[in-house]
């Protein structure tokens, strides 16, 4: 019996940009991987090493220079409602009430008002914003607006949800709270999530699998079998430390630390 088809397939994907200086930048340098349905995938790496480009290619917002990206065996040719994205920037539409934001994809699909309301009620409750349904986004905190953005993508009922450092601009405590909210939503909905981050701890809290990017290459594909919920003790377990060490090594940080430690010893 053959293995089930992957939900998302990257096959030798390349993405090149022409820099103003005339040099060619290889943002993605032949990236290949498969992701089955329902997986929480974190894409981790330093800034400028291809994480966001990979996500934008999957979103259909960035054209590739070669290779193919497929979702359910269909080639990605542009943005679509089957791959909504939460951005690092605040993209909750300020001119729409909270409810209208959550219902945006449903309105585009042409759902009836009563149906839209029933769906938005459910997701607003899931993110704890029921009483703010008729508020303007400016009346909410940054963390609450991120909840609205999460509710909007989950309400769209897409199979694949894309998140580009969505909590990057928030303080540590708000971010931790949003991790719990996101994991609850993911558990309830069973969607496939691609989550870009440069925070190792964040990826250990969230991911089923961590894809480590460096210089436009997929340099490590790490399964995270740690039990959930992942408390500090679990993240500090032998396996947690091993994953962290692997990531640091692959990003060249561990090596740099060793060098600096040796220099200190010499002094």
């Amino acid at each position, binding site marked *: 019996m053959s293995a089930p088809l992957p939900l998302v397939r990257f096959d030798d994907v390349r993405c090149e940009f022409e820099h103003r200086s005339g040099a060619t930048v290889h943002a993605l340098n032949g990236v290949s991987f498969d992701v089955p349905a329902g997986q929480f995938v974190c894409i981790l790496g330093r800034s400028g090493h291809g994480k966001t480009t990979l996500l934008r290619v999957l*979103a*259909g*917002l960035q054209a590739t220079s070669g290779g193919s990206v497929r979702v359910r065996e269909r080639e990605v040719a542009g*943005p*679509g*409602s089957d*791959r*909504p*994205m939460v*951005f690092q*920037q605040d*993209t909750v*539409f*300020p*001119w*729409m009430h909270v409810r209208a934001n959550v219902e*945006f*994809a449903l309105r*585009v*699909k042409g759902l009836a008002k009563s149906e839209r309301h029933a769906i938005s009620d459910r997701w607003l409750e899931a993110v704890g914003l029921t009483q703010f349904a008729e508020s*303007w*986004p*400016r009346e909410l905190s940054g963390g609450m607006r991120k909840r609205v953005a999460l509710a*909007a*993508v989950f309400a*769209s009922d897409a199979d694949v949800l*894309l998140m580009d450092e969505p909590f990057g601009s928030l303080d540590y405590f708000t971010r931790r709270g949003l991790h719990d909210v996101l994991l609850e939503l993911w558990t309830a909905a069973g969607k496939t999530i691609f989550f870009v981050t440069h925070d190792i701890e964040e990826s250990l809290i969230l991911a089923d699998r961590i894809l480590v990017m460096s210089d436009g290459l997929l340099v490590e594909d790490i399964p995270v079998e740690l039990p959930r919920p992942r408390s500090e003790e679990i993240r500090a377990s032998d396996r947690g430390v091993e994953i962290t060490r692997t990531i640091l090594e692959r990003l060249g940080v561990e090596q740099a630390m060793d060098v600096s430690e040796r220099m200190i010893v010499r002094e």
Partner: protein
Amino acid sequence: MSAISRSEWLNRRGNRSRLRPSGRRLGPFALQALGFVLAIGVWQFVAASKGITVPTPSAVLTDLRNNFLSSTYLRAHNLGGGQGYWYDLWYTAKNVLMGVAIGTGIGVGLGLISVPFRLVSQVLNPIAATFGAAPIFVAAPFFLVWFGVVPTAQVTMVSFYTALLLYIFSRRAADNVAREYVESAATLGARRFHVFRSVYLPGTVPELVGGFRIALAGAWGLEAIAELLGAQSGIGFLINYFSEVFGIVEMVSLTLLLGIVAIVCDGLAVLCARALLRWTATGKVA
């Protein structure tokens, strides 16, 4: 220095709302009234000075009272449709409002359509730059030659300049809409029409309001100039008439009347804009 206790911290948090300054401030209305009174005072002072031909405020008020609704002078000289100043004021206001409405529709429509259809902006940008630089005194005679001394000439001229201004404003406003909003809408399934309606249209309103107010304020002047150059009615036409018969009081009365109507129309525009911009951080209108 030691940290404050938890109970004291909670106490301070609870009192925060009571720590706001309670001093009274002079409201904006009072300041506006004060400015108005000062202007009247300066006016009275200048009018009382010898060697300067400026009517006193009371003379102007008397003229307005005697001629606004019905004027024997205008009737005797076959002016103002045999009525009072209001007749020409209505003529001017009607042309301005029609011209601004038509110009806004055309300017905003073309400006926003040129966002998804770059070809439109490539064709229109040089035209807007060329005609936008042409002074009104150069352009006005063309409108008079083409349309004659009828309201169509004045309405067309106001529409033309309003459309030019709002085309430039809407282009800039559309360019300033954050790319992330457009991309976010696209990943949520929005196609070109939905992106236009749900992102570009509301996202450009704050800047368009500013452009609209500038166009409206300028339109009164444009209309008056167009009437000065060639019309059979309107405040500009009357001002031109009274300048020829040295009717200084009437000229000031009519100018004041035009200014008051312009301020009232701007106030109404601000009220409408506030309703449209409830979602902005300050709710203030540019």
